[in-house]
């Protein structure tokens, strides 16, 4: 048995959650410190694992396997490849940053917050590393619960956090129970829960009707999580209500669970069905992209705007996935096109995590100071908060896909694949890019940062008595953003290190369908 990387990465946060939960609640500083420290080992290990495994990431790495429930043929089986490694790393990174950021901003019910957050991390990482359907499902649901509480308890009262929380919970639950039935059906025909093994056993091949039902059931679960139009309406509410760190992780990681599931489970299990239904899913992707962008454009609430932009951006992901699934040809150059599309999709998830996570942090920056997210309440802030302007500008530009920053690379690859395989969709989808520029520059940059700074208006929303750090981005906020900015530039300028692993894994995946 090698060094149990994945087990440690997954369960150290859980240990942390238990430790934090058992600590006395009075010493808030100590609690925060312990929580942050418990999230660091996972981050470090995830980075090491990523670096170690990137070369041969076409295959599952760091496998661990142990019998778990023999009668059920369920195993504790974890492993990562180039698709999951970046996402695991993303999870640990965003969690650590969120905890660090929250250490400064969370004031109520500190102990519960940090314990729940660490629990959440375990659930999220678990989904990315699980290679057994039962294990996958358990982790899937484990992540649901803490997030539900994070939204409900620490949400802003004016945003109806409880409503948002239960909406989030119910939506996800609807999808996941449907998925559970489909998993059971798959298990009944294949006799295994092994995610790697099932594709070769052609699940439900003998029962087309059931196969279609299972396909859509699983799709529903993941599409809700992604979220694809029209299953997206939980997202703006949840994002708006959640505390900053919650939004970050929600956008940065939770949405990726759905995307990851589509790639790891839906596509390999039902490649033929996926290809058959690709036109329909593609339409959903397009609607998500354009609709999300349009609705973003009409928002006056900064956080909702970014929430809807997530719908749009995850639409890009879906488009890439659909392109990759639209053909089963494994000969070059079709395989290359498919691989590029899927690379783009995976990288889009990673980038979206970095970028939108960053954007939510940045919304938090202004919200902590002013307690408003109304775009009409700001204006001219770039004169007052130049560093904030710079960081926000860069993140926003990454989000709209400016070449040289991360977002562009994945969009480029998605469209590169889409133009080769599903050109009509690509042509329509391109509109979303223009709209993306419009809502980001027009709404975010122009309304918040440009224009005339009015001291009078500022006095109304900013109360110095409630803010103890510097007016421009405080040091902890800069530190929080720094790693994200680093990755935006790294991926944007020289994506090969990140993409090598992804590419190896997607190529292997597609070639094996």
């Amino acid at each position, binding site marked *: 048995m090698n060094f149990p990387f994945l087990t440690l990465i997954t369960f150290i946060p859980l240990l942390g959650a238990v430790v934090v939960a058992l600590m006395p609640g009075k010493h808030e500083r100590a609690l925060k410190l312990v929580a942050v420290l418990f999230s660091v080992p996972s981050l470090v290990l995830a980075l090491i694992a990523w670096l170690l495994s990137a070369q041969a990431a076409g295959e599952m790495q760091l496998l661990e396997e142990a019998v*778990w*429930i*023999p*009668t*059920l*043929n369920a195993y504790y089986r974890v492993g990562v490849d180039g698709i999951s490694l970046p996402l695991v790393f993303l999870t640990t990174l965003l969690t650590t940053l969120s905890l660090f950021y929250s250490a400064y901003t969370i004031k109520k019910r500190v102990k*519960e917050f940090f314990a729940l957050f660490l629990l959440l991390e375990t659930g999220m990482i678990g989904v990315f590393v699980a290679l057994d359907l*039962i294990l996958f*499902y*358990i982790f899937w*649901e*484990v992540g*649901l*619960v803490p997030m539900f*509480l994070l939204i*409900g*308890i620490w949400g802003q009262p004016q945003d109806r*956090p*409880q409503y948002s929380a*239960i909406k989030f*919970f*119910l939506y996800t*639950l*609807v999808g996941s*129970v*449907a998925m*559970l*039935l489909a998993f*059971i*059906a798959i*298990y*009944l025909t294949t006799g295994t829960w092994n995610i790697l093994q099932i594709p070769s056993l052609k699940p439900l091949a003998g029962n087309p009707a*059931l196969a279609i*039902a299972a396909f859509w059931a699983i799709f529903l679960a993941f599409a809700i999580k992604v979220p694809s139009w029209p299953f997206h309406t939980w997202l703006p509410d949840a994002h708006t209500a959640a505390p900053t760190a919650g939004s970050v992780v929600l956008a940065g990681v939770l949405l990726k669970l759905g995307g990851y599931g589509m790639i790891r489970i839906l596509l390999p299990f039902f490649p033929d069905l996926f290809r058959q239904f690709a036109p329909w899913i593609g339409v959903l992707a397009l609607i998500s992209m354009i609709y999300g962008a349009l609705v973003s454009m009409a928002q006056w609430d900064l956080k909702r705007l970014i929430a809807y932009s997530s719908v749009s951006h995850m639409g890009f992901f879906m488009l890439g996935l659909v392109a990759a699934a639209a053909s089963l040809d494994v000969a070059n150059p079709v395989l290359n096109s498919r691989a590029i599309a899927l690379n783009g999709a995976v990288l889009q998830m990673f980038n979206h995590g970095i970028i939108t996570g960053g954007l939510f942090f940045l919304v938090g920056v202004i919200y902590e100071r002013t307690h408003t997210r109304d775009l009409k309440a700001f204006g001219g802030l770039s004169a007052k908060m130049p560093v904030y302007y710079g960081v926000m500008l860069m993140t926003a530009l990454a989000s709209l896909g400016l070449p040289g920053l991360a977002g562009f690379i994945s969009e480029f690859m998605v469209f590169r694949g889409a133009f080769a395989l599903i050109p009509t969709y690509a042509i329509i989808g391109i509109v979303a890019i223009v709209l993306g520029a419009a809502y980001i520059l027009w709404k975010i940059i122009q309304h918040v940062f440009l224009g005339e700074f009015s001291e009078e208006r500022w006095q109304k929303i900013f109360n110095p008595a409630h803010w103890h750090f510097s007016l421009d981005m405080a040091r902890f906020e800069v530190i929080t953003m720094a790693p994200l900015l680093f990755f935006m530039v790294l991926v944007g300028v020289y994506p090969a290190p990140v993409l090598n692993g992804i590419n190896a894994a997607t190529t292997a995946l597609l070639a094996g369908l």
Partner: protein
Amino acid sequence: MTLTQLLVLLLPELVLTLTALVVLGLDMIWRNGSWSQRFLLWIALIGSVILIAVTVLIWPLTGTGGLPIAFATGKDFGGDQVPMMALDPLALFFKLFTALVLILVLLASGDYVRVRIRFRGEFYALILFGGLAMMLSAAATNLLMIYLSLEFLSITSYLLTGYLREDERSTEGAVKYFVYGATASAVMLYGFSLLYGATGTLDLAGIATVLMGGMVPVHWLVYPALIMVLVGLGFKIALVPFHQWAPDAYEGAPTPVTAFLSVGPKAAGFAVLMRLLLTALPGFQLDWIAVLAGIAIVTMTLGNLVALWQSNVKRLLAYSSIAQAGYMLIGLVALAPEAQSWTTGLNGLLLYLLAYLFTNLGAFAVVIAVENHAGSAQLDAFAGLMRRNPFLAITMFLFLLSLIGIPPTAGFVGKLFVFGAAIQRQMIMLAVVGIVNSVISVYYYYAIMRQMFFGEAVDTSPFDEGPGLRVAVGVAAVMVLMMALYAEPFIRLASESVSLLAASF
């Protein structure tokens, strides 16, 4: 079978009887309200623990085929030996099950009883007798024995329900429970008589033999008999439409009794139902599967829908337990004993029952704790529980998740197996109704969660739940998690417990 052998095989029942009698006796000796009376609880608990030990001890004796237990030799009954009960894996499972129910209920009832109930010894003794009745009914293989043990359980339950004699609701609940229960058992008895008339025997296996032989002159009697028996058992399990007593009785009864009622009679009812249908009436499979499938759907749906509107947690949990019975029934409907599969439906049912035992008793233990402190089991009594007693809130949350069926909790494993059975039998509709219902159920479980986590309490002072409840809740919570994370022994237990039954099918 010698008397010694018989006594050994009946050891679990004897232990419980003795314990109950000792408790009763000491209750008479120790003055009411005296300091010594607190030992009554300990004695009852020790008896229950010994019950577990004894059950485990005699487990190997059953062998693979199970042992029949006959109280009289064949000559007296005019035939061969007529066994009344069986010591088979299913019976042993329910003995264990009973012991667990008793331990958790007793632990949870300590403080409640001390404050609100005058005759503690009798109360504990009645609960122990209720456990005894559960064990007997689960082991019974003869219509007579089934009737007797179920009546035993019923009468105990009526009395327990009406135990708060000063409380309007308690007595009212008891009256309704009694009237409903007595009528239902009379209907069931009538059904038994018809079954007897149709086959000429009371032995379950014998009935099956006669029916299989095809030489039955009054074959048409069987179906009406089946329906009437279902009424009686449906009442015990609280299946829709024989469920209506449950909310009133649950709400009225002292909360520890409600906890007991929500698990004990239900489990006994399921045990009898399984035995009766599988051992005696396998030939009528098509009939009872159709009826039970319909009942399962109605039960799940109605239980959940009506629960949406409840504001009393006890009543809410009553409806919830109705719905839960609906899920369990799926296991029976979708049974596939011939399949060499992970889920035979029946093992799912037992697993679900086990999960439900820990979950529901844990939840009721929390309700008891809150009620002890706040004096009411209304929803708003739970407001701000997270601030006041995080332990209770978190465990309650866990129990609610388990009731919904979200992993990693016991409820998930139960649902996995019963829904798995449904899909295996291609009863997709049943599974879909099941999951839709589990989504609906979130709405009302959420009502409790919302109060606990988001609600603002008038009184925000922390409170202590007391050692008994703490242990009860803690044990239940650990088991709820264990069943999901280390499910193997539980699954094995459930599968082996039904293996014999399935084989006889």
